[in-house]
């Protein structure tokens, strides 16, 4: 018999309801099922079941996050090297980035799991796999300079207020990771905007450290030229070697993740494609508006797509099935309106350089309404059977 299995069998009783660690049953269960995929016999028909379960479901999302995670680590090191005027080779950039990013992820997972286990133990239900994704998504939306205590506070807010008070996974209205980010964003604006995007750059002169979206052209040059001047040329924005949140800078890596999600059918392609379509159409519209020369309204769809966190948000945040609509037409509209709102916020609201977070949260709130409308329409099309 497998020695690890033996350990679990030995401990089984202590963590059962009657055992001395009965309260921690969900923790034991989560650890055990992490090692050994449970597959109980079907009691009710249908007697055969698909192999896909939530563990696999969430593992695929984590897999799709690997490109942005690893690139984010590298870029964090690369940017901080750049700021200090050192040119780092690949591995030293990656390692120094990992040194900054890993503690953020560990704090996010550690504190988040504490809340998950607490609620699972009180409510006597198994720990849901959904947190594996939330706990990874949240750090990737943060600037690398974020203080760790804010990470802890943010993820606590996201898990408790964003999810658990609604009843836990499957019942939350808002995406918990974005709720956490919104909390930190509005509570600690100083650490979430301005010169915060480059780790280890404090005290270094001449580094603006702003993100592309904060750039506006001055003195009659076009926005794209100003962007290129400040290091935000289109290839840089696409490949992601620019300052920004840990996971959002590389459009390419986000697209790879989106492709994994769409091909495996774990993320719904309607949301992603709808969102990209909404962004492109709205960006085209604002581009055609007169009198916007030199602002982000004049940037055109490609720049809107590659700059900022839109691709990260639409690929990984908007596709969270729980907070997105549950009907297919609803998903198209949901995605489209996220793209639309993102551009509108970027262009029309100078208070928030980045619009995608608020666009997704706003549409999360509208998701049940979209579902309701779609269902009313579908009911009207069915031949009644009552």
């Amino acid at each position: 018999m497998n020695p690890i299995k033996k350990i679990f069998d030995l401990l089984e009783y202590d963590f059962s309801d009657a055992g001395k660690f009965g309260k921690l049953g969900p923790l034991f269960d989560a650890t055990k099922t992490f090692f050994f995929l449970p597959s109980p016999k079907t009691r009710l028909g249908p007697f055969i079941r698909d192999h896909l379960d939530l563990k696999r479901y969430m593992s695929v999302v984590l897999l799709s996050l690997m490109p942005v995670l690893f690139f984010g680590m590298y870029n964090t090191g690369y940017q901080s090297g750049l700021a200090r005027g050192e040119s780092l080779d690949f591995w030293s950039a990656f390692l120094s980035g990992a040194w900054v990013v890993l503690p953020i992820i560990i704090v996010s997972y550690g504190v988040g799991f504490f809340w998950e286990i607490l609620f699972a133990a009180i409510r006597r239900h198994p720990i849901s796999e959904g947190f594996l994704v939330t706990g990874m998504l949240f750090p990737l939306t943060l600037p690398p300079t974020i203080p760790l205590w804010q990470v802890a506070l943010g993820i606590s807010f996201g898990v408790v207020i964003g999810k658990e008070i609604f009843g836990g996974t499957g019942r939350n209205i808002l995406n918990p990771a974005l709720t956490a980010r919104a909390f930190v964003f509005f509570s600690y604006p100083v650490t979430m905007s301005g010169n915060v995007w480059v780790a280890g750059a404090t005290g270094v002169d001449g580094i603006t450290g702003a993100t592309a979206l904060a750039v506006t052209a001055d003195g009659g040059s076009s926005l794209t030229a100003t962007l290129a001047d400040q290091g935000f040329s289109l290839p840089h924005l696409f490949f992601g070697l620019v300052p920004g949140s840990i996971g959002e800078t590389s459009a390419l890596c986000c697209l790879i993740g989106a492709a994994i999600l769409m091909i495996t059918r774990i993320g719904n392609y309607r949301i992603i494609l709808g969102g990209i379509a909404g962004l492109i159409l709205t960006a085209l519209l604002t581009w055609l508006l007169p009198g916007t020369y030199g602002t982000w309204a004049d940037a055109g769809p490609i720049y809107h797509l590659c700059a900022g966190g839109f691709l990260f948000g639409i690929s990984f945040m908007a596709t969270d099935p729980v907070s997105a609509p549950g009907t297919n037409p609803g998903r198209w509209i949901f995605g489209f309106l996220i793209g639309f709102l993102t551009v509108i916020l970027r262009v029309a609201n100078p208070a928030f350089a980045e619009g995608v977070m608020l666009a997704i949260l706003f549409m999360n709130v509208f998701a049940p309404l979209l579902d309701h409308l779609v269902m009313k329409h579908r009911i009207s099309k069915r031949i009644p059977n009552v």
Partner: protein
Amino acid sequence: METLAPSKGFKLKLAGKPDTSVIRLARPATVGVSAQDIPHIRPKLLVKEKEAVKTGTPLFFDKRDPAIQYLSPGTGTVKQIRFGARRRLLEVVIALDSMDDFVEFGPLPSADLVHLPDQELIDRLKQGGVWQSLRQLPARDTADSGTAPPLIIVCLNGNDLFSPHPGRLLEDNIPQFEFGLAVLKRFCDRIIVAARTSSMEQLNPVRHLITHQVSDSYPAWDPGAILYHIKEKAEENTAWFIHVQDLLHLARFLKTGRYPVETMVTVTRGEDKKPHMIARRGAPIRLLAGNFSAGSLITSGRFNGRKVDPDTHLGFFENTLNILPDTPEDEMFGFLRPGLNKPTVSRAFLSCLTDREVQLDGTLHGEERACINCSYCEDICPVDLMPSFIMKALHGDDIEEALELGLLDCCRCGLCSFTCPSKIELTRILSQGMDTHHKDKQG
């Protein structure tokens, strides 16, 4: 002939398709009449243990309509009457004598059918224990002889993917089939005869009788799924349906005046290719199943059948047994493996890149979790329901909303539960909702 090709349904290729040869099984020592696969029945026994019965002696009837009775498919003595929890009748077991002694109901020559009054025909079918093979949607209860059906669907394919091939069922029985259709014409002018595309090749002799050819992905040939795709108005919801084997029994009963005792059965297992078997109705499961390992799960339809105890007998409507392999141990780091051997309708395992025949065992492959709104159930539902939304309406006790969302169109195919990554028993929840509604309606 019309073609129905709904795009949704079960598209994986399963192993274990039976061979199309036919063998005849030996006479069993016992037969049973099971009440377990008869929906909504409230049985009342007519016999006691140790009582002698003839082939065609009524064993129990349905309290809701005492004229509907279930007859003995063999001659012998009642060996055992088995009850389940709360004294629910499971089955009546009869130890067979060596010879059959039939209760004679009197034959009905084909030519006399047109002269027989409606009521007399109905009474004769009820008396002969074959009326109940006509069933009524949406509850799939015994057809109500008091009202005329809007249409009758004759299903040439059974409930499982590998139920007996209609070509085998019909090959020597075409006159009976035609007679059966003539009987159905007495109740309703609109008869739908539907067959799977893959069965058509061997159905040439009856091609002219088939009205609809349906796609080959389960459960396109289910009467509920067929009705959903052909219906044009709400009155058609109460259509009747009958499976071809039951129709042949009905025709044979009328023609010979004797209760038909033989039925064709398929048994599917892993890589086996077992032949079609002609057996006694209500034959013992062990006789049909042959050898199987101790941990196997036997079902009478892997999607919508019931779990069958190997020491019981085949049910009244059943003609397929699936032997699902034993469960392996919990797999270490199972969720991280590439999964070449893990069939799935998603694309989350590498198995989706291969096109080979697959086997699925009788386990959940995961644990129950909350619904995450992923729409896998909606994507596979053959009648365009949104099972997760109906489930939520039923959990909120809002039967009105569930009905509006089309609950009664549900054909209980089981695909929503099959595909759910949260392993929610959607089929059970929806079926219970429908059954409760049906019970309330009956009063």
